C-alpha cells in the first residue's frame, strides 16, 4: 500500500468516528514505517477536516464530530512514544468562548465551542449571559490567544464592542484575537467594532480561528 493510500485509510477511519477503526489504522501505518507526524497531519487531521465538511453539509452531526475527535485522540496517543512530547500535547491555541451579558442563548455558542475543541483548540466555554468582566478575567487566567463573543440579539451585540474596548483598556488587545458571531452579527459589524473576524457558522469559526492563530 502506498503512503497516499494509507493516509486515505487513516482519514476514512476518522470519518467512521470509531476508536477501534482509527487505532487499527494507526497501528497499520506505524507498522509500514510512516513517521508519526505524517500519520497525524496527512491522515488523522485530514480525516477531521472531512468530518467538518460533512458536518457543515448536514451529513454528520455534533455527537459524531465529538466521537471522531475522541477516536483521533486515541490514535494520537498511540503515537506519543514516537513524537517529541510538546508536539503531542501542544494545543493549536487557547480560546475563551461565551455569550455576552444580557443574552441567554447558548446552543449556537456551544456548537462553536465543541467544533473548536474537536479541531484541536483548548476551549474555555464560560457559558451564556456572561458579565463582560468575566471574559477579561478568564482570558488573563488562561493566557488565551483568542476570545469568541456570541450574541443572538441586536440589543446585546453592543457587549461584543464593549469587550473589545475593555481589552484595550487592560492593554491586552494586541495579544488577543477577537472573533464575533451570532445571528445579528455580520462582517460589517465585526469591521465596525474592530474585531479580528466574524464567523457565519461553527465550521467557519474553525477555519477563521486557524487562519488567525496558526
Amino acid at each position, binding site marked *: 500500500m502506498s503512503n497516499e493510500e494509507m493516509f486515505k485509510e487513516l482519514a476514512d477511519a476518522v470519518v467512521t468516528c470509531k476508536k477501534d477503526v482509527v487505532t487499527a489504522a494507526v497501528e497499520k501505518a506505524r507498522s509500514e514505517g510512516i513517521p508519526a507526524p505524517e500519520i497525524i497531519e496527512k491522515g488523522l487531521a485530514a480525516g477531521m477536516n472531512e468530518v467538518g465538511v460533512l458536518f457543515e453539509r448536514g451529513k454528520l452531526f455534533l*455527537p459524531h464530530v465529538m466521537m471522531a475527535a475522541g477516536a483521533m485522540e486515541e490514535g494520537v496517543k498511540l503515537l506519543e512514544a514516537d513524537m517529541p512530547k510538546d508536539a503531542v500535547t501542544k494545543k493549536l491555541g487557547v480560546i475563551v468562548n461565551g455569550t455576552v451579558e444580557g443574552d441567554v442563548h447558548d*446552543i449556537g455558542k456551544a456548537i462553536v465551542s*465543541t467544533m473548536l475543541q474537536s479541531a484541536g483548540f483548548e476551549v474555555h466555554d464560560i457559558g451564556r449571559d456572561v458579565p463582560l468582566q468575566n471574559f477579561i478575567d478568564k482570558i488573563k487566567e488562561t493566557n488565551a490567544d483568542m476570545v469568541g463573543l456570541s450574541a443572538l440579539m441586536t440589543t446585546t451585540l453592543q457587549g461584543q464592542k464593549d469587550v473589545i474596548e475593555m481589552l484595550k483598556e487592560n492593554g491586552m488587545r494586541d495579544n488577543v484575537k477577537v472573533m464575533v458571531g451570532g445571528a445579528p452579527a455580520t*462582517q460589517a459589524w465585526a469591521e465596525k467594532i474592530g474585531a479580528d473576524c466574524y464567523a457565519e457558522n461553527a465550521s467557519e469559526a474553525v477555519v477563521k480561528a486557524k487562519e488567525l492563530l496558526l
Partner: protein
Amino acid sequence: MATEYKLRMGDGKRIFMTKEQIVADLKEGMADAADLGSIPDLSEDELDKLVDIITMPSRMVGVEQGKEVPVTHDIGTIRIDGDQGNSGVGIPSSRLVGAMMHERAFGADTMELGHIDYSYKPAKPVIAQEMQTMEICQQNMIVPMLYGAMPNMGLYYTPDGPFENPGDLMKAFKIEEARQSMEHSAEHLTRDIVWIMQRMMASGSDGVNFDTVGAAGDGDMYASLHAIEALRKQFPDIYIEAGMAGELMLGMHGELEYDGTTLAGLWPHEQAPLVAKAGANVFGPVCNTNTSKSAAWNLGRAVTFIKAAVKASPIPCHVNMGMGVGGIPMLETPTIDAVSRASKAMVEIAGVDGI
C-alpha cells in the same frame, strides 16, 4: 457603462450590481441549495422571473392580482408593546390591542397570542392569565386566533431546567449522557406543550403555532412532532401551524427518529412530509440568509429550497419571511425593497400558500 441595479447584501448594506452579476449570483445561490438539498435547479424561466423581480425599478413591489396569499404573524400581540429586545416598537398597549391592531389595521389573516417570554415552558406558571387573555381576544376578534410559542427545548437544560446541559456533556465526551439528557428533555417538552394547549383550547383558542421548531436541534423537533401528534388525537379540529427554526435540522442528538426517519440533517423538503404526518395543518419552511452574500445569491438559494419544500409538502406551506430568513437581509426592521421582492418571489416562483 452597464446599467447597475440597487440591491442589498445579506446584512442589509446597499450595493449596486449589473444584470450579469445578478444572474451569476442567482445561479450560484441556486446551485448551493440544489447541491446541499439534492434538489432540482430552478428553470431558466424562473431565473428570468427572479431577475425581473430584483431589477424592478419600484422601491416596493407586490404580487400580481389574483396571486394574493394569506399572511399570518407570530409574536404579533407583543410586537406593538414589546421593546427592541422583543423586536417590538415599544408602544404601550395590551396584547388584545396588539392582536386587534394586526387584525383590523394591518390586514393579518390569522393571529396568535404569545407570552412575552415566548416559550411554552414559561407560560406554565402564568397559564391562568394566558387563558383569560385568550378568552378576551376570542370575544373581540374574528380572524383565527392561535396560541403561539417556541418549543425552545434549551429551557430544560441546566441552568434553566432539570437536565444536565448536553453542550457541557458533549464537550466532556459524555455523548451517551448528552443524548439521554436530550431524550428526557424532549419528553418533558412534549408533555408541557400538550398541557398548555389543553388549557388554551378550553379557553377558545382556534389552534396552536409551533414557532421555531428545532431551535435546540433534533430533540426539539422530536418533542414538537410528538406534541403535534398528541394534540391532533385529542383535538381533531385543532388548527396546527409548525414553523421551523432554520433550514437544516441540527443533529444535536443525531439518532432521533420520527416515523422511521432520522431527524438530524433534514432540509425543508424533507421536513415537510414529517410535519404533515404528525398532524399539522400548515408547514412553515425556513431558509437562512447568508449575511456575506448578496440579496440575489440569497434569493436564488431561498427560492430553490422553498420551491422544493412546497412541492414535497402534502399540506400548505407558509414560508417564514423576516429578519435573516427567506432571502431577506439580517436587519431588525428589514427594508421594504428587500422584503417585498423576496415575498413576491416566494409566492410567484416558489409557489408558497402563505407567508
